[in-house]
């Protein structure tokens, strides 16, 4: 087992997610019909044998708490270690109102980090969908001999605007960091997931604290590289996207309709675990039709569904026609309703005959519990 302790950032939700994060953090956004975004971070760790994981939270995390429970679904409910929830004010030395940057969030949990028994950490974003082979990444980390290793891609990917990039100086290490707007050229895109030695992280936390610096890349990592140190890298070649806006969210869900993307995110050898909820299978009525869609259990489909992603318990009544929609749990679509490019949050109800249409670039977001 890798000598790694996981930290997942679930404290931040981009405001461009709008009403989707009104009742939850981006890490607990429903994704691909039955998962939450954080499942990818947790499952990557679980599959690599990393069972000691802290989740840093800040606000609107009740749904995340409910989802995580004791961590049992990811085999992280352990007698020693296991999953630790790190909400604000949890510890006496974390009395900070809002984290203004990643280093401040880490500083708030400094005593937690100082107490972990592993010698390195994997710092994982909670709002990114990728199925990382963490064991391979850890081996690359060891092989590079560096104190910090960046998980990168060799291709741009969707979500969250422009990338931090790294310029390799060998096949294992990089020595320059490029910020958005910097010149192009051969450089790897950072997934903003890092393996880092505990001692280095604590140093950087302390340096940032005493210099009033807040950010991981701009401050901590830049400071580290300025000293002449290098970082290792590991290239993740499969699907990846970050969810920082409603458009990102919609697009990433639609990506799942492509077999290749699903195969990348759900490889047999690294299953994705999520909170287990018992439910019934999905029922298709005598006059239903379905095409190019992903459907979770517990739906009841009597109408027509095309290019859609449906979460648990969605009910599509007779003669309703859905195209290019993402419908969260327990959405009800009335008889004869026609929806296109709609993202419906949990428990929304669409009346009989209602007609709604967004566009692929601007999907219509219907907030939780709303009746239309």
């Amino acid at each position, binding site marked *: 087992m890798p000598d790694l302790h996981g930290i997942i950032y679930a404290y931040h939700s981009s405001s461009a997610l709008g009403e989707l994060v009104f009742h939850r953090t981006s890490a607990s956004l429903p994704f691909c019909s039955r998962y939450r975004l954080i499942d990818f971070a947790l499952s990557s760790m679980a599959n690599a044998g990393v069972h000691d994981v802290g989740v840093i939270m800040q606000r609107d995390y009740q749904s995340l708490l409910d989802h995580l429970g004791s961590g049992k679904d990811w085999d992280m409910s352990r007698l020693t270690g296991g999953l630790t929830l790190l909400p604000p004010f949890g510890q006496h030395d974390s009395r900070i109102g809002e984290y203004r940057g990643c280093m401040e969030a880490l500083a708030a949990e400094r005593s937690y980090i100082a107490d972990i028994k592993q010698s390195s950490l994997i710092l994982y974003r909670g709002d990114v969908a990728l199925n990382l082979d963490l064991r391979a990444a850890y081996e690359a980390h060891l092989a590079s001999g560096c104190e910090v290793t960046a998980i990168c891609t060799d291709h741009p990917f969707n979500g969250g605007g422009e990338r931090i990039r790294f310029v390799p100086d060998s096949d294992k290490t990089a020595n320059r960091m490029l910020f958005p707007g910097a010149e192009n050229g051969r450089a790897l895109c950072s997934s903003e997931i890092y393996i880092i030695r505990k001692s280095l992280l604590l140093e950087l936390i302390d340096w940032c604290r005493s210099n009033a610096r807040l950010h991981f890349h701009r401050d901590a990592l830049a400071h580290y590289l300025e000293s002449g140190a290098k970082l290792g890298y590991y290239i993740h070649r499969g699907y990846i996207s970050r969810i920082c806006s409603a458009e990102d969210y919609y697009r990433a869900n639609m990506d799942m309709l492509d077999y290749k993307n699903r195969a990348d995110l759900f490889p047999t050898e690294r299953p994705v675990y999520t909170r287990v909820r018992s439910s019934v299978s999905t029922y298709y009525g005598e006059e239903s*039709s379905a095409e190019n869609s992903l459907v979770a259990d517990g739906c009841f489909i009597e109408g027509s569904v095309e290019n859609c992603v449906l979460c648990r318990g969605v009910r599509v009544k007779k003669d309703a026609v859905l195209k290019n929609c993402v419908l969260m749990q327990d959405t009800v679509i009335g008889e004869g309703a026609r929806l296109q490019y709609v993202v419906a949050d949990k428990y929304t109800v669409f009346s009989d005959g209602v007609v709604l249409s967004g566009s692929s670039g601007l999907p219509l977001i219907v907030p939780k519990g709303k009746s239309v």
Partner: protein
Amino acid sequence: MKKECIAMLLAGGQGSRLHALTDRAAKPIIPFGGKYRIIDFPLSNCANSGIDVVGVLTQYQPLRLNSYIGSGLPWDLDVQNGGAYILPPYQIAGENGKWFSGTANAIYQNIPFIEMWDPEYVVILSGDHIYKMDYADMLAQHKAHAADCTIAVLRVPLEDASRFGIMETDGDGYVHKFVEKPQEPKSDLASMGIYIFTWEKLRQYLVADEADPNSEKDFGKNIIPKMLANRERLWAYPFSGYWRDVGTIDSLWEANMDMLSPDVIDLYDRTWPIRSRSPVRPPHYIGRDAEITHSIITEGCDIRGSVSNSVLSSSVTVGEGARIDYSILMPGCTVGPGAVVQYAIIGEGATIGANAAVGAPPNGKTNILITTCGPGSAVANGGVIPAGTMLYAERRDG
């Protein structure tokens, strides 16, 4: 540790009338209705009825049943003082072990388990029935009628009554006669094989029956008739919902088909959830050229062909151009492109090759002949399996 009422679930022997389907696994964990296994129904009924001690009696291939039930968590039965317990036969000091020799003997051998809970009432259940029933309501009637034994009964058409154990009741609803499969039924009240006994009374009858060398140690054949002969108070609890015994290939197929009519049994009712243990699988995917009508599809499926009037468990793959009609596909089975599966039951992990033809629709007026491919069996590309065939998997050595 005291409980007012506990349940004992007779998970049964091999269930040999299911042939290939129970060749390697006990009947209660046969997949059913897409998401479920048969035993989910009595277990969920217990949990929903507030009964949190369930003893599961089994002596046939208990390994997978054991793994399936585990701590009882999926049914909310993993409580500190209670839970679901697998009860295999065992040896006691100074004696050789004995296999369960009948339903009553199985309960008799587990008297020490029952007495751990010091119950006033014991519910006796079967592992091969599909139904939703509130045992708490049945218990309330048992108490209200000061019964020694209450038997759940279902009204059946009189012409079918000779296929069942029939209860004859007096005007008040007490049973005065029980006839197994009567030639000329005098009542339409069929026993569902679901009993509530006042434990002290049952205990007496179990001990006496065990000592009777002529007894077959069976509830229906021995215990109930003896209680009637002794004029104990037996109450018939009338049940009017959906109920099916799924002990044969035909009845298993029919009951699965029933699940396609949500007005017959509502599995989407959240006030009485039927829960199951299931692995986490991605949502099912319906391909661009797929056609799905009047079917049940479960997570992990990947459907590229056409599926109608069928029940698909999790992780079933249906290739392009394949056609599935009036069939039951159990977890993890694969149907190759162009294959046609009709009126068939395909067991867990079975493989149907490309362009194969399995089963056939009923031919004119003849009866429906169900074709069965056992768990792990394989049909070659282009293979033809005639209607009514029972295909077993090849055995590994060993």
